[in-house]
């Protein structure tokens, strides 16, 4: 990765992180008791990354664009650290079922979303 590409990937990550912050804040203001914002963000971001990498494989989207929008923007938009903290918070407050839903449910749905995105991207 050359310096310009790295800079663009970082800028993409900044945009993604800002999107996550605004979207999560908006969802949190409406839904209490379950970290729905992070779930929505991680599932949607996984779908878009699958789509981007699928388009990259099919040659529809140039690889540097996949890096900036995928590794950068979707990488910065989705987050593993907050998801892990929120699952632990649910466990600590005794909400075991919601914790499993958050930890395992989000994983399964995100992988499914990424697979769907990949499939659509590979078969334009």
């Amino acid at each position, binding site marked *: *990765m050359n310096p310009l590409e*790295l*800079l663009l*990937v*970082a*800028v*993409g*990550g*900044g*945009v*993604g*992180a*800002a999107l*996550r*912050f*605004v979207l*999560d*804040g*908006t969802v949190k*203001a409406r839904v209490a008791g379950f970290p729905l914002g992070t779930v929505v963000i*991680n599932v949607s*971001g*996984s779908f*878009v*990354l*699958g789509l981007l*990498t699928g388009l990259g494989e099919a040659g529809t989207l140039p690889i540097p664009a996949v*890096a900036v929008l*995928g*590794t*950068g923007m*979707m*990488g*910065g*938009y*989705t*987050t*593993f*650290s*907050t*998801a*892990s*903290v929120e*699952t*632990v918070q649910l*466990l600590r407050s005794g909400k075991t079922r919601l914790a499993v839903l958050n*930890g*395992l449910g989000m*994983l399964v749905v*995100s*992988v*499914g*979303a*990424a*697979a769907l*995105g*990949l499939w659509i991207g590979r078969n334009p």
Partner: protein
Amino acid sequence: MNDERPPHHRLGLIGLVALGGALGTGVRAVLTDLVPAVDGVSWAVLGINVAGAFCLGLLLDVLARRGPDVGHRRTVRLFVGTGVLGGFTTYSTLADDTARLLDAGRWAAGSGYALLSVLLGLAAVVAGLWTAGRLRGQERAR
């Protein structure tokens, strides 16, 4: 300086999160470039995610023990936690890599990689919280 708007409606704070996210994403991109995936499994992403989960658990607990989430504590949480660590770690790459492994028929590798990531992430948060408690104890003992 008494702004009543929620943080995610304030342009300055959104910019702060974006700056942190750009830094975290940049470091992640360099690390994943240096340590390429082996046979479709990215150990760099796993390490990044687990390290980021530990740091976020530690950070949030240290900040919460110091007082309410206002002023400079909130600024640090948003810049370092939401921004840098949020951008450093990634969920979409984990999901995409897992989907690829499963799509290639490598069910054991795919499900193993995904489950290991999530379980280690939880353990890392707990370790971060525990470390924050230890640090606080040492501070008090002084």
